[in-house]
Each structure stands twice: as C-alpha cells, then as structure tokens.
C-alpha cells in the first residue's frame, strides 16, 4: 500500500458528464422511478427539483450504488458504468454530500479527511500528512480549521468540510442533497457561489437536490424536475421562470388560496418569555436568557440556523424540557407547561416532526386526536371511563373537517402520510378555542397542497386573535407568515423587527450571529 498519494493540482481534473438512461426502480409494488433519463453536462451546476417523495433521493441513491436499479443504466462521459456499491461510485469519482453529515464527530477535521481516503495508510505519519493537507487547503476555495474536532465545528464549517472531502478524494462529480438547509443565507450563497465558479471553470460537475427556487435561479445553469418518479421537465435554469418550474413540480394539484392577513388593533401582550434558560442533556446551555413577547393576533417568527436553541425553546414551551431559569407568563400570570395550565390558558402546539413529538405512532388516529380531550366530557364519563363511541364520533367529525386521509379512525397514525399526520395534529390542536399557538417547522417535508393548507390554518388562528409563535428553519415561511421576526442565535434572541422594516439580508446577518 502506498503511504504517499500525490495530490494532483485542482485544475488537472475536470468534472465529468453524467447521464441516466431509462432508470427504473420498483420497490415491491411501488414504482419509485419510472423510465427516467436525465442528462447532466460536464461542468454544469444542475438542479434536481421535486417534491418530497418525487423520487429524487431514489435516483441519486441508484447513481451512488446504494440501490440497484430495476432497469436502466448510468453513463459517465458517455460510457456505460456499472455501480454496485458506494465504493464503486467513489472509484469512479462520484461523491455525495448527504443531508445528514457523514463526518465522524469525535475525529478532527484532518483525521476525517485522511481516513476517508481509499488508500489510507495503516499508520499515520502526521508530520508528513499535515503539510500535505495544508498544501491541499491552500488550493481550495474555502477553509476549515483542520485540527478542530468535528463536533465543535459549526454547521457551516461541517458542510464546507463535507465538500472539501469530496475534492480531497478527487470526486469531481458531486451530488449535493439540499446542502443549504443548515447554512445561513450568507454561508449558503458563499458555498454555492464558489462551487458555481468551480463548475464554470470545468473543475467539477454538480448535481444539487433542492427545493429552493431562489438558489436554483441564482446559481444553477440547468435543471430537471421529477414528479412521482417521472421526469416532468427540465432545461436552462436561467431561462425558465419560477412559475414554470413549480408547475412542473406540483402538476395540476389544486392548491388552496392563502388565508389573508387581517388588520386589527389588538395589541395586548399574551405570551411573555422572561429570561428563559435551559441546558441540553450534556449540561451545555442551549437557551440563554431568552426574552420575547407575543401579542394577541400576531405571528412572531423565530428565524435561525438550526441548532441555535430553537428546538430546545419549543421543548421548553411544550413541557418536554426542564426550565433552568426564567419564566413563562401568559396574560401576566405564570404558566407552567403542564396539562392543567395548557387547558387553563388555552395553549396549543404543533411541534416539529409531529409523528415523533405530538403523537403515539402505534395508537389509532382516533386516540391520537383525543389526546387533548379524552379526560373531559363528552369523551370521558365520570372523568375516567372512556366509552369508544364518543371518541370515535369526535374523531370522525374532525377527520372529515380537516380532510385527514386515513382508511379508518382506528388505523395506527404511523400509517398516514406526513401531511395527513400533520393535519390530524392540527385537527386536535386547533379545533378548540386557541389563545396561544406554538408552531415549529410545520411544513417540513410536506407537499405543496399540505403546505398551503397548514399555513392558512395558522393564519386563521392569528386572525381569530391567537398569539402565534412560529419557529422555522425556512426563512421564506417566516417572511410569508410573520408580523414580526425574531432571530435566534446562540440560544438567545438577538434581533426583533416588524416584518416590513427588515429584509432577508439583515435577518441573515443576525442569523450568523452579527
């Protein structure tokens, strides 16, 4: 085994062209990919668009060798290649940055790079490796602290390191799976901009899975759209309009009109978070003296790069996490996140990942819908006896009203699709009288129709006078729904502004902690 691999200068290698021909993948009776042919030209920055479940991940997993396609082939620079495993893909110079980081948290950045090499030496001579890594870094468009443990790098640095790793391994065909979801808008623009330049110089070819039209328009030169496993369109990303792209993505599905924002003069403060503090399970402060007020009939959107304490904040409000210091007040009275106070103050919530945080997956839809009301009449008699009739009847009403698609109220809620789980939770949380609503990433991973519907429901609650706290990693969602924006960084709110007095750039700068 050769311990010393010469690292070729970046310009000596070029990004290859890749085509899929008649790619078909059948899982059991379900056709995930249906005769799909896409063409990514050498040195292009190609966007792969599609809703969740459209087949984007299946396609790239077939290219990467995780799945064996039922039919079809992959051509690299015009030659047919058989890719049976991720290792084959790696040997052909195809690399992927996954949505979840694949860096090893306990190793340093340098160790992560060196161990990823196919010819990693049996014994590392760090005295030799370090200068060679430095030399490699000098040629790279962005920099990462190499001697730092990966677990202490920021999300942006990790993402950069993932991309550096592909370049280090000389993988010049890069597949990026929603690479910017963990980055601030500034970081996203930096990373995509630099990759775009490398692609234009022909050094790499990039295939990027995305659902952010803004990024596609700003950085990509070509695109393909998938829907239900089929190619529904594609072409020049600069020539096509956003409306055209989104029509290719959603097809003829009817999308509900957005509820309108009604003006009102109600400015009573309802929810008051005063100096909230919380720690994670390892004792690190995740929410640090957070102050925020939410008024009646107002949506306050909390923006921030994921991992800045937003989920901890939602857990605090939902009673899933212990409040270390500070207090929550509703209408000026102390609120303790317990069932009794949820009822008394009419506090409801749509937590992120509802299947995990708001339901018991194996219990039935009817039971899950009854979680707020099972101990009160009409469902409970004498406060403890739950005859099946009333619970089922109420569930049937709500399933109908909120258009939850389920085979029966008795099927386990885990058998429902993501959008329908979220609708069932909405039905449970919003069917009563709501004073305070806490919402976290409500539309994550949902299709267009569900997104529109859920956003309208949230807006309706606001119009009815509820104080709404919306925590979201999707800045577009916040810009669309909020009356005021607050930016969370390092566990505290460092910026609050009415929506019409701010813009994406200002918010982005505060998200980065400036």
């Amino acid at each position, binding site marked *: 085994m050769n311990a010393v691999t010469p690292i070729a200068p970046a310009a000596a290698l070029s990004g290859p062209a890749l085509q899929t021909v008649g790619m078909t993948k059948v899982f059991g009776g379900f056709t995930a990919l249906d005769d799909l042919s896409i063409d990514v030209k050498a040195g292009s920055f190609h966007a792969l668009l599609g809703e969740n479940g459209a087949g984007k991940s299946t396609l790239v997993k077939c290219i990467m060798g995780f799945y064996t396609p039922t039919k079809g082939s992959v051509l690299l620079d015009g030659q047919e290649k058989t890719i049976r495993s*991720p290792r084959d893909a790696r040997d052909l110079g195809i690399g992927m940055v996954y949505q*979840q980081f694949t860096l090893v948290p*306990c190793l340093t950045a340098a160790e992560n790079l060196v*161990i990823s090499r196919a010819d990693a030496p049996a014994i590392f001579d760090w005295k030799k490796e370090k200068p060679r890594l430095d030399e490699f870094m000098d040629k790279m468009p962005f920099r990462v602290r190499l001697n730092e443990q990966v677990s202490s790098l920021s999300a942006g640095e990790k993402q950069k390191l993932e991309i550096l790793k592909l370049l280090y391994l000389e993988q010049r065909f890069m597949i990026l799976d929603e690479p910017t979801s963990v980055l601030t808008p500034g970081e996203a623009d930096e990373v995509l901009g630099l990759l775009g330049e490398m692609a234009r110089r022909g050094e790499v070819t990039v295939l990027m899975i995305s659902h952010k039209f803004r990024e596609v328009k700003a950085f990509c030169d070509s695109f393909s759209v998938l829907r239900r496993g089929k190619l529904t369109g594609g072409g020049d990303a600069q020539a096509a309009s956003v409306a055209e792209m989104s029509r290719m993505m959603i097809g003829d599905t009817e999308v509900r009109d957005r509820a309108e924002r009604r003006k009102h003069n109600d400015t009573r403060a309802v929810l008051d978070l005063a100096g909230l503090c919380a720690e994670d399970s390892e*004792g690190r402060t995740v929410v640090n003296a957070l102050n925020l007020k939410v008024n009646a009939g107002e949506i306050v959107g909390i923006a921030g790069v994921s991992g800045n304490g937003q989920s901890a904040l939602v857990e605090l409000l939902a009673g899933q996490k212990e409040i270390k210091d500070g207090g929550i007040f509703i209408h000026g009275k102390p609120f303790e996140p317990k069932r009794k106070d949820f009822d008394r103050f009419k506090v409801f919530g749509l937590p992120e990942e509802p299947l995990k945080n708001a339901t018991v997956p194996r219990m039935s839809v009817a039971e899950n819908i009854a979680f707020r009301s099972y101990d009160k009449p009409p469902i409970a008699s004498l406060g403890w006896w739950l005859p099946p009739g009333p619970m089922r009847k109420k569930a049937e009403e709500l399933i109908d009203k909120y258009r939850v698609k389920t085979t029966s109220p008795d099927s386990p809620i885990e058998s429902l699709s993501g959008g329908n789980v979220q609708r069932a939770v909405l039905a449970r949380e919003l069917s009563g009288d709501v004073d305070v609503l806490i919402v976290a990433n409500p539309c994550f991973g949902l299709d267009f129709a569900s997104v529109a519907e859920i956003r309208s429901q949230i807006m309706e609650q606001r119009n009815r006078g509820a104080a709404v706290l919306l925590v979201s990693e999707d800045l577009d969602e916040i810009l669309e729904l909020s009356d005021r924006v607050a930016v969370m960084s390092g566990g505290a709110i460092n910026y609050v502004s009415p929506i019409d007095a701010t813009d994406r750039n200002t918010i982005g700068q505060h998200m980065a902690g400036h």
Partner: protein
Amino acid sequence: MSDSSLFIVLIAMVGGAIRVSTPFMFVALGECLTEKSGRINLGLEGNLVLGAMVAYAGSYTTGSPWLGVLFAGLSGLVLGAMHGYICKLPKVNDIAVGIAFMSFGTGLAFFFGKPYIQPTAPRLEAIPLGWWSSNPSIEQALQVNPLFLVGIALAVFMSWALANTRWGLIVRMTGDSAASARAMGVSIDLVRLLATAAGGFLSGIGGAFLSLYYPGSWNEGLSSGQGLMAVALVIFARWDPIRCVYAALLFGAAGAIGPSLQSVGISQGYYFFNAAPYILTLFIMIASARSKSAAREAPGELSIVK
C-alpha cells in the same frame, strides 16, 4: 495505628493493586475496544471464567502455563466472535446477548472444569522487581507478573493505535457514527465482530491470570463478578485505555484493603472491606451516570447512549 503499620498497609495495598488489577485491566481494555466500536459485550464475565478454566486445564495438560494463557485467550476469542456474530443479526440486542453469554461462559467453564478443581497445574512465574529493597513487605509487594506489564504496554499501544492508525480511526468511526462509516464503505458488522472477538481474547487472558497466578487455582467461585465490574470500569475510565489502567489499579487497591488491614491485625469489618470494590462499583455507576462530561465522551453508537 502506628506509622509502621500504616506503611505496611499502604505497601500491601500497592502490592494488592498490582496483583488484583491485572484481570480488571485485561477485561476493561477488551471491553474498551469493543465499546469503542459501538457495541457492548456484557458477557465478558463468562469469558473471564471460561478463560480461567481453560488456562488451568491447558497448563495442567501441556505443562506450560504460557500455552494455557494462549488457550484462554483463544476460548475468549471464540466467545467474543460468537457474541459479535449474533449481534449482527437483525433486531438483536447486544445487552441481552451479553447477559446470555455471561451465563453460557460460566456454565461451560463449570461443566468442563469439574475434573480440574483438584489437580495442581504449573503457575505463571512472577518477576521480582523488589530485589533492590531489603524490606520483605516491599519485595513481596513488587512480585510483578509479566501479564501486568503486558497489560500496561497494551494500554499504551491501544491509546496510540486509536489515534494514529487506520484501524484505530475505523474503530472510532464505527463506534461514533455508523452512518459515516457506512458511507465510507466500511463494513460495520465486520469491524464490530473483530473488535468484540479481540475484546473477548483479552478477557480470556485476564481469566488465565486468575487461575494461573492470583489466586492461582481453579474453582467455581474464582471470579466473583470481576468481569462485570470491569465493564463498569470502562465507563468510569471514559473509554480511554490509559485511564482503564488507572481505574483497574484503583479497583485492585480497593480489593486489597481487607487483606492488608488483616495483615496488621485489624480484622473488624473484614467482610465489609472485602466488599469495597463492589461498593466502589455502585458509587462509580451513580457518579458517572450523573457526569455530563462522561456522556460527551461516550461513543455515539452505544445502545446505552442512544
């Protein structure tokens, strides 16, 4: 207690630490390697007892205690490999399998070990490192078994190898993030199988020390849970081989409190002091469960961490 008897107690505890710690050290290093790869083998008590039996039988039959040590290691290797293989089957819980293997190993040892309770097998020789002293209790305390030194060398080697070799990095990677390892084309099951087998090998050697050096005979009450305590010790040592050695010495010294107090004529609370390692285990478990930094250093894939 006068100064001289305090001195005797301390020397006896040092000697005890050196003597008693060796099996702790081997089991803990083995478990440390296994846990670094992301799997827990609670069955090392079984490896220890079976290793003790096989070493004794091997030494008795071949006349060479070192061959006995090798056989003990191999018996542990087989048990460890079986654990590793069974755990790679879908939906198998490594903790439950470990408990089964604990009973399986001790059961095997008792079944095959009956004929070896009576005979006397050749024992391992100690190296007299106390030759420079004229004090008999120092000389006695510094009778060091070569396995003790091997254990320390092994800990140093492991700690170097985990940071500086490809294999070390692969083991840490598998233990900390299975997804990354898989994405890098590493076979997680194979890494864990090998790490569990190697851990089993080391525990078997720890068992050989019990029957061939101290206490130095084979009987069914030989181990009294040292294999289990060593597993707790890995948590205490926060998955660091060097700290495993310190922790083993601490446990050894705790185990030597009773006998060394007795040697200066204090016999009140003898049984209480003999229970010291067990009480220590209990407190260490409580303390480390509360320790937040221990949680940070735990390999991310361990089923107790998830």
